[in-house]
């Protein structure tokens, strides 16, 4: 029987287990050492593995990622922590130009097995620079993989998969879920494969595609619709690049209606891409336009009132589902 852990504890457990399993795995980032990380994700690791495998770095996001790439070229599997996903922009070039292109420009003769952990997302009162969801920047870059777990189980299993993957993986961990999402986690060596979505709730009437902190309100909205006689199938994408096309298509071929929910802003968020792929490849199966519930095209404000106005929530999702059901 799997034990219950919080999402954050699941991340820490994955790191510890992978470091015990493989001496080539190490972590680096700001405050990850004796302090244990801004959110505590690396607590205890420095005591166990020492300062050569749990490396406190200067405030140098580009160097944190560049150092990871260099180590990866020599067979290591570094896990770099961005203190907040918002700060990943300071290391952007090393991810999108250095890591993402390396195998391609080496003629296939190199791998870059790095993981960049990025605590993302709002609803935590973080304001403009501690609330962002920058996943779309990386989905737009071939050569990367992008994952975003919603449960403690996936937080652990996907992090283990990311560490073992030979490609650069950007791992978005949602701050709202750190202590709120609790549940069973896989024991030991079990991983959650990258590229495979999970159906969180079966349904025949509408397909709802979402991930990370939007899975919760999506499930609540689906419950409301069920009371109105509409069964919503909620699919947790888990991996955003490469996303699980086959799970998406299988579901919509049954439901013929699709709602996409994400906390990232609307314009060119992953919803735009999912919608376009559905139009291109499954247009004949649609009975209604693909709809999106997303953050508006604005920044993440500090005021609770303003942030709440922006965040997708159960009511907004419910309303969109009703529109789709009535179409």
């Amino acid at each position, binding site marked *: 029987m799997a034990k219950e852990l919080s999402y954050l504890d699941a991340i820490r457990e994955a790191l510890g287990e992978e470091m015990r399993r493989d001496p080539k795995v190490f972590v680096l980032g700001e405050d990850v050492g004796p302090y244990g990380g801004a959110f505590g994700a690396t607590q205890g690791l420095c005591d166990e593995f020492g300062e050569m495998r749990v490396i406190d770095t200067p405030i140098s996001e580009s160097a944190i990622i560049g150092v990871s790439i260099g180590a990866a*070229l020599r067979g290591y599997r570094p896990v770099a922590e961005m203190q907040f996903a918002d700060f990943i922009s300071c290391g952007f070039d090393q991810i999108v130009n250095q890591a993402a292109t390396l195998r*391609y420009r080496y003629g296939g003769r190199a791998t870059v097995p790095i993981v960049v952990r990025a605590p993302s997302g709002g609803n935590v009162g973080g304001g403009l620079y501690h609330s962002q969801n920058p996943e779309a920047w990386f989905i737009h870059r071939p050569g990367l993989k992008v994952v975003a777990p919603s449960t403690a189980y996936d937080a652990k299993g996907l992090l283990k998969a990311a560490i073992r993957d030979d490609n650069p993986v950007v791992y978005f961990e949602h701050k709202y879920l750190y202590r709120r999402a609790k549940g069973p986690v896989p024991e030991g060596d079990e991983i959650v494969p990258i590229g495979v979505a999970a159906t969180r709730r079966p349904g025949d009437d509408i397909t709802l595609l979402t991930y990370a902190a939007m899975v919760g309100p999506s499930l609540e909205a689906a419950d409301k619709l069920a009371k109105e006689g509409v069964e919503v199938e909620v699919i947790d994408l888990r991996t955003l690049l490469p996303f699980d096309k086959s799970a998406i298509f299988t579901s919509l071929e049954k439901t013929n209606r699709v709602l996409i929910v994400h906390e990232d802003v609307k314009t060119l968020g992953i919803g735009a891409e999912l919608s376009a792929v559905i139009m291109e490849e499954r247009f004949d199966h649609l009975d209604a336009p693909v709809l999106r519930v997303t953050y508006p095209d604005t920044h993440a404000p500090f005021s609770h009132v303003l942030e709440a106005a922006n965040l997708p929530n159960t009511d907004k999702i419910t309303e969109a589902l009703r529109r789709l059901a009535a179409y």
Partner: protein
Amino acid sequence: MPPIKRTKFKLAHEQLLEMFYWLKLIRAFDERLSMLVKQGKVRSGVYTGIGQEAIIVGTCFGLRKEDFICPLHRDLGSFLMKGVSPRAMMAQMFAKETGLSKGRDSALHSGDNDLGIFGNTSMLGANLPVAAGLGLTFKMEKTDNVVVAYFGEGASNVGDFHEALNIAGVQHLPILFICENNQYAYSVPVEKSMAIDDVADRAESYGFDGVAINGNDVLAVYQATQGALARARGGQGPTLIECKTYRWHGHSEHDKAFYRTNEELAMWKSRDPIPTFTTYLKGLHVLTDDHEKEIEGRVKSVIDDAVEFATNSPDPGPEEAITDLYA
């Protein structure tokens, strides 16, 4: 023309001749590439290091296979000295299937982990954080291998330079930071991009030594390198060596370099590292006129062979435009 100074490092005659061969080969390789661009046989991506060869030969000479180099875009010669065949290098410039990147990119954007070569992107200075990562692994493994990382004076103004040298200083990494100060960042002269005279002065703020030397004197470069290598291999951390030199050609082969005077170019050409070294070797009776001709003939045949190989190599198949993105 400043005379070559005697060094305290004893080099056998064979070694001096080998240095001479590399100087001639690297010069001739770049000159041939320049001609091939004019003939339309190489499309672009040629950034010659003509005039700067003493830096490459003085720093790469005698490196171990296990040592890593992180060249900048003018350092084609360092690839050759570290073991890439002239054929593969020429095929790389011809964008052929047999090149290092299989036609994906030209120039020095590819590398070889087995030979200890990291190939950078076009983002100048972005190789330096990666160099720090490579150096970190040598420190973790308690080996005495080193990293030799190259950058221009222009790249010393990029943020990655600061982040990388700072972390290298903090972690006492076994790295030689070699600045090729060729006086121009594309068209911008050094006095417009730095308020100090010597890039070497920047090392002090990272807690290690920096020295500015005559980069056109191969033995001066070699001597400074040997001292820095001994410190790095002995666990005493990084050194910055600023090699003052001059870029004879434009930034790339299309650049006529109208932003500088003929007098300035002529002055630097009078400091050409190759005749200076030739005179020195002939004075020592290490090199005879006949021997010089023999070496020049050997260089020409190596390059002719490389051009023939590259010319006759196949283009990559169109399907390879989308392969090698993921491991």
